[in-house]
């Protein structure tokens, strides 16, 4: 990333005023998350009675999720389901998208310009308007409550974005490298795997990171498809806390922490790829 230091704040009020205002807003921005973490370590009665207090000691009982199993909220199972669905979806998504993007960018494909226009149009389609036909598609196949009833739609919904971004990237890939590999006797597939893929890992990864968040956090389709408790993903499972456990704030806070920790860790590690991937679909570069 380019160095940002190109300007002073002079003339835009004083630096101190701006920094103070910004700091105040950061507190508003961060406090809910801080409060969530803090409350997850307090017994339920203290979460409410001493709402602003730091926990006096770490109360880990909230994280004892086994306690809730018989009440029908099985956080660890939801976590496992989310991991499976997201993992398998991403693998299939990346294979199909990378292949398609490369095909559109570098190979002879009949009607490829129309294909790109269709892909662009599909990025905007509100997929949740399509849940009725998709739901009955899986009902007829008797696949409701199967991981595949989520994996297949998730792959499809993310293909337009992934292919459009990746094909923009592949287009800039130097043809000379591909030609050179062909002269060395590589077929299309060999060239693709041993020349193109290794150089493109950065771009592929940016797309992967964006799609990970979209799939991990998806709620509506999971709500419609996953009817059995054993197959619910985390966002749907968390809904079990709505309405119930009004008294039990502590365990609910702990469950929410477990739900957001994976994406926070993910964000901390892959921060740069993620920021790149988010804007890649819209702005060239």
């Amino acid at each position, binding site marked *: 990333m380019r160095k940002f230091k*190109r*300007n002073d*704040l002079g*003339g*835009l009020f004083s*630096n101190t005023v*701006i*920094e103070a205002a*910004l700091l105040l807003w*950061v507190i508003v*921005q961060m406090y*809910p*998350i801080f*409060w*969530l973490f803090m409350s997850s370590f307090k017994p339920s009665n203290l979460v409410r009675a001493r*709402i602003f207090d730091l926990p006096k000691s770490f109360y880990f009982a909230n994280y004892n999720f086994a306690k809730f199993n018989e009440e029908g909220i099985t956080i660890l199972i939801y976590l496992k389901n989310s991991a499976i669905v997201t993992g398998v979806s991403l693998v299939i998504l990346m294979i*199909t998208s990378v*292949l*398609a993007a490369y095909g559109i960018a570098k190979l*002879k*494909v009949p009607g490829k310009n129309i*294909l790109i226009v269709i892909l*662009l*149009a*599909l990025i*905007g*389609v*509100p*997929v*949740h*308007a*399509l849940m*009725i*036909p*998709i739901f009955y*598609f899986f009902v007829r196949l008797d696949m409701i409550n199967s991981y595949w009833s989520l994996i*297949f*739609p998730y*792959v*499809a*919904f993310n*293909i*337009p974005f992934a292919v459009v971004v990746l094909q*923009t990237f592949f287009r800039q890939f130097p043809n000379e490298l591909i030609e050179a590999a062909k002269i060395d006797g590589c077929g299309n597939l060999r060239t693709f795997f041993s020349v193109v893929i290794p150089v493109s890992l950065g771009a592929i990864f940016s797309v992967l990171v964006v799609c990970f968040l979209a799939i*991990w956090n998806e*709620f*509506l389709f999971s709500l419609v498809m996953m009817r059995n408790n054993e197959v619910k993903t*985390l*966002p749907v499972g968390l809904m079990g806390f*709505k309405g119930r456990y009004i008294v039990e704030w502590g365990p609910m*806070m702990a469950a*929410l922490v477990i*739900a957001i920790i994976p994406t*926070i860790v*993910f964000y901390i590690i892959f921060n740069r790829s993620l*920021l790149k991937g*988010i804007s890649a679909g*819209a*702005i060239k*570069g």
Partner: protein
Amino acid sequence: MRSEKEIREYLTGIAFVLPAIIFLILFIAYPIIQSLALSFFKWRGVGPWKFVGFYNYIRMFTRDRYFFRALKNTILFTILMMSGEMTLGFIYAVLIDLGIRGWKAYRFIFFLPVTLSQVAISLLWVKIFQQEGLVNVFLGVLHLEQFQQIWLGDAKFAMWCLIFVAWWQWGGWHMVFFLAGMQAIDPQIYEQAKIDGASTLRRVFSITIPLLKNVWFILVVLCLINGFKMFDLVYVMTTGGPASATEVLGTQIYQHAFDVHKYGYASVLAVIMVTASLIITIFYVRVSGYRQEVLGE
């Protein structure tokens, strides 16, 4: 005549593209067509479809006040969320781009909520807005008891609570787009303006804002599209209530389909949403020249 080599090349190309196309046909194109078809039928999930012509459409447009309420709310939500999120995102981006002290930390913090599960965030804010939640306790500490509310239970406030959560969560998302656009601006333009004596604020208004017009444009388009998709936040925080004050198209379609099993009627909403978003996208692709950019023409 096409040579055998040429045919082989085409077949390779098709083989690369085919898996993706199969997914798109099965789970996007076919459902769109089926939704369109289903919107002309009456169907409760079992038995044969019963053809009713335009009945579903006529009923929705003439007799369904919930539809108009949801449509109005969807538009209101979209506009209010968009303006706040964009303003916040722009301010974040300007300050970060100016290189304010600790900009890396700010960029990290402002984007953080974007990565979090909407359901988890919504459940957290339900607790914050609850009767004995953070907001009311805080007002009590400040001795402002007269302002304490059951925030989400009051039709006057519920919508604004959801909008605030959206501002809180999505400002950073807009920031990323603005930052990407700002990096493409030639620093020399700023230098020149500085030499000419333009203040920082002046430079923001007469250089940054106009030069980012493409970014503003795409963000508006993305917000309009995302506005139709609005569901998680409403469903978790208020389920459309109180008294359908926060009902949106997304929650209506879910309700018609999966609560009362009127699939044909719900499909009318699906058709409206898909059509509107396709019009917006196609408009965008045509006007912006985005297609040329993507095609590399």
